[in-house]
């Protein structure tokens, strides 16, 4: 373990956490509208997995995508501006929370039809193989997408053609309000789904960013070397509701259950590891809080100060003109 590395991972997770807490505040103030799905509690997966990528590798996600986008290095100000629907947003205000895209950072988007982006990931991987590039594609999705037909078609194609794609299933136990055991035949071991296509799979503690990163380092190396796809089931828990309109606990899970999982908060776990291994001190965390706080405050200010798109933007980008 390296001090710089672990503090970087902590900072990335802290950025996502504070960014999203601020987004929730802005939602309450009606600065952000529509659907807002928070990643709070699941940060270790995006941060750990993306830490193992090269800048030219592809990443693609579902609708709970703020964490992946920020972990990929997108400017928080432009992400916040997108949530505000401003013209300075990553997608000029046309995407919104669920459809963040940052093409220069190879973040190929958030997609909001469950399972629908998994074939796209196989296509990105197909393209890099076709172009004889040694790139990998990482596809993030929730366990709720696993039973979908599109997921299965994509897994079959990825295995059939040995595509360099890593499927990262973020198993947060609930597809909206439905627990995995009421939705997925192989709920006790979702990774087994991949085995039925001959895809190697492994389960990891998705609250432990170092475990995610270390597994990803190993997997990325194998996939980059041409050994075909890999499926990771990262066990996690969403601390907030499914979206802003869903309370954190109530109809489908108890307050006690949420509290129990909060004891394994990925930020808390990493902080304990850092402190017990003498890789950092309280002062480092105070410093990181201050830095991240400034970034988030600046992001909100930037979003507030930015203009909304003008009506002339309505019809641009429907078709590519040249």
């Amino acid at each position, binding site marked *: 373990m390296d001090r710089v590395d672990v503090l970087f991972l902590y900072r990335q997770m802290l950025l996502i956490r504070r960014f999203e807490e601020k987004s929730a505040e802005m939602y309450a103030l009606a600065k952000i509208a529509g659907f807002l799905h928070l990643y709070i509690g699941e940060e270790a997966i995006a941060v750990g997995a993306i830490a193992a990528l090269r800048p030219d590798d592809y990443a693609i996600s579902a609708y709970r995508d703020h964490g992946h986008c920020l972990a990929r290095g997108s400017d928080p100000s432009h992400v916040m501006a997108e949530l505000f629907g401003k013209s300075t947003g990553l997608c000029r205000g*046309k995407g919104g929370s669920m*459809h963040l895209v940052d093409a220069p950072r190879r973040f190929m*988007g958030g997609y909001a*039809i469950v399972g629908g982006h998994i074939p*796209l990931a*196989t296509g990105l991987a197909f*393209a*890099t193989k076709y172009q004889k590039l040694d790139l990998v594609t990482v596809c993030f999705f929730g366990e709720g997408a696993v039973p979908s037909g599109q997921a299965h*078609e994509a897994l079959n194609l990825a295995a059939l053609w040995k595509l360099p794609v890593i499927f990262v299933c973020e198993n947060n136990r609930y597809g909206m309000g439905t627990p995995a055991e009421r939705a997925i035949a192989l709920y006790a071991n979702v990774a087994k789904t991949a085995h039925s296509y001959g895809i190697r799979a492994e389960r990891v503690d998705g609250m432990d960013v170092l475990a995610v990163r270390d597994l990803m380092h190993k997997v990325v190396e194998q996939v980059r070397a041409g050994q075909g796809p890999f499926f990771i089931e990262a066990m996690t828990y969403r601390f907030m509701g499914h979206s802003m309109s869903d309370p954190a606990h109530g109809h489908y899970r108890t307050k006690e259950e949420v509290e129990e999982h909060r004891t394994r908060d990925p930020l808390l776990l990493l902080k304990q590891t850092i402190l017990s291994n003498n890789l950092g001190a309280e002062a480092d965390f105070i410093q990181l809080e201050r830095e991240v706080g400034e970034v988030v405050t600046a992001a909100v200010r930037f979003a507030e100060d930015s203009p909304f798109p003008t009506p002339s933007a309505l019809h641009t980008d429907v078709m590519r003109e040249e």
Partner: protein
Amino acid sequence: MVLSYREALNQAMREEMRRDSRIFLIGEEVGYYQGAFKVSKGFVEEFGPQRVVDTPITEAGFTGLAIGAAMAGLHPIVELMTMNFGILALDQIVNNAAKIHYMSGGQLSVPLVIRGPGSAAHQLGAQHSQSLEAWFCHVPGLKVIAPATPHDAKGLLKSAIRDNNPVIFIEAQLLYGTKGDVEDREYTVPIGVAEVKRSGGDATIVAYSKMLLLALEAADQLSREGIEVEVIDPRTLKPLDLPTIVASFKKTGRLVIVEEGWRFCGLGAQIAESVYAAAFDYLDAPILRVTGKDVPMPYSRPLEDAAIPDKARVIEAVKSVCGTQ
């Protein structure tokens, strides 16, 4: 040179694939089987299985894969064995291919052709005899092309492949064997440009794909009866070349629109609305539509014939707008 519609499509793809290694063909049976309708005859020999990719029967999966590959800079041509099977890929086409450029604020593009036969052939039953072009035309972000002749099929497919947007390219099973003159030299037909296929001053017929041939036959017979019909093939359904249609309508004041698809919410309704809005004052008679009947396609031949526009119905409609009936 005289080519069949099938050969014209084959040539278009072959020429483009020779020109640009980013282009690949993907779909069911496109490789070693050479296409369910033999459109990709000889391709796997020339381009190899890396560029002529046989897929399992998973339309959503391989269409989505092609969209992802297009996002990464390739130019896929997806062959749907028939357009009916595109329904299985509709989430990919509508939610991903058509919207990604817009949702990303122009950062990502999807240069993609999805092609295959639409409309009825002979007695293939309800699930294999559909004209779904209106569905695709309804979705912002897609271009839709439905050529009727080998010349147009070749030139438009080349343009579609060179376009940087998702293009739905609708062929017709009964057109594959039809023959026509195709230019010997390299050429393309621009997307969004209609063609006057026959000149006349008494009435205008707008018809595309297989229905163009029907309209031309009807026009021949009407001519012998003294009615000169102008026949316009939009060729591209979206973006529609309204000015060419309106120019003809302003000359004749009478319009019949022929389409094989279902009547309710059909493409002809949109064309009629557009013409009414653009040239109401030129109207000498209400615009008439000759369409498929609003029923699932029956198997039995007489019933199937009754469900699809025929020459008699086109002639009757023209005579009606001309007031000679």
